[in-house]
């Protein structure tokens, strides 16, 4: 069936099977492969995107559920050639290594700072509780979110 959504500011539509997961709609139908799949149990957060401005796991939504929604993926974060402050902070703080969890981690962090503008370390750690990273031990991710949110330690 037909699904239409605003993805990274553009109206996109495609004909999909009802069972198609949103993440496969983004990756396979729209070619937005920045959003990664890391598990099959809604546990890892690699596929996190913004749906109507809030973090959501695109592996735990059907594409048809996104009808009419506004979706932002990692590809839609930078504007006018400038990295989003969260992307910049991840780079500056060495908050990524292999980079596979990074798109989901950044989207979750953007949503987190939107909900808690000056998060404490505890709020950051709890806010990222379902975004797994196997490389960084999270130390520099927490630092990056603090830097991007203008907070101290």
């Amino acid at each position: 069936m037909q699904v239409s959504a605003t993805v990274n500011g553009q109206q996109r539509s495609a004909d999909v099977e009802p069972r198609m997961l949103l993440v496969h709609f983004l990756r396979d139908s729209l070619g937005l492969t920045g959003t990664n799949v890391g598990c099959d149990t809604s546990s890892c957060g690699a596929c996190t995107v913004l749906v109507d401005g809030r973090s959501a796991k695109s592996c735990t939504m059907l594409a048809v559920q996104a009808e009419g929604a506004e979706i932002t993926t990692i590809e839609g974060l930078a504007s006018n050639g400038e990295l989003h402050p969260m992307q910049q902070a991840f780079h500056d703080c060495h908050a990524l290594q292999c980079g596979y969890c990074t798109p989901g981690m950044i989207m979750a962090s953007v949503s987190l700072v939107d909900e808690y503008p000056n998060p404490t370390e505890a709020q950051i750690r709890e806010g990222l509780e379902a975004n797994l990273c196997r490389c960084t031990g999270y130390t520099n991710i927490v630092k990056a979110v603090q830097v991007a949110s203008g907070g101290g330690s």
Partner: protein
Amino acid sequence: MIPAAFDYIRADSAEAALAALTDHGDDAKLLAGGHSLIPLLKLRLAAPGVIIDVGGLDDGLRGISVDGGQVRIGALTRHSELEHSDVLRESCPLLAHTASLVGDPAVRHRGTIGGSLAHADPASDLPAAVLALGGTLVARRKGGEREIAAADFFTGFLESALGPDEMLTEIRVPVSTGGWAHEKFNRRAQDWAIVGVAVAEGGRGVALVNMGSTPVRAAAVEQAIADGASPADAAASAADGTSPPTDNNGDGPYRQHLARVLTRRALEQATS
């Protein structure tokens, strides 16, 4: 990790959803936020022939209001809305807090209270809180509506009193500003509770998470508190009559021990 194929109906009104439910009966599943159902679909632990999507409805099924001594919550209200609702924080802080314990932020942005309750998972946080609060669930079917006490709603593991043609539309809990606490014990923040306990009104309502095939009310604790027992004394009977599961995180005796410890801690918070 790929759901089996199904037919999809996007309901444009509650009536349309109920009509579709009546048509398809047991072969149909309602989809709200999807955070209970979609994981089961992906693992092919559920393979309904028809999915009826009510997630896009408003239709009076969304939102939080206080009406006399009752807090009325639309079944499609999302966990994050409960968590951040000033109305709920003032009228029933236990429920707002419990919502903040569910899953993780992304789950709370999509998951709904109605979906969580209808899924009737004994390891979920919200069912126990609603039970401790003595809530009421409103079920609607084509041409009718009924109220089900939370105590009667959870009938078995992942089983509720909802009929195959019924949809949960509203959750009502009494305004409850007395001492409260929700202790959730797990190994990782995002995980389901190994054991949890929700305490309302200084211990007049106490319900346990993951201590049996349904969320269970700790009646002996409630009675002890009503009789004036201290938190420590009351909590000693927290595990009475429970038959908790055994899994990688603990066996029955360990869970019963945890229930006593967590209940004491929750009662101490709720009465301090």
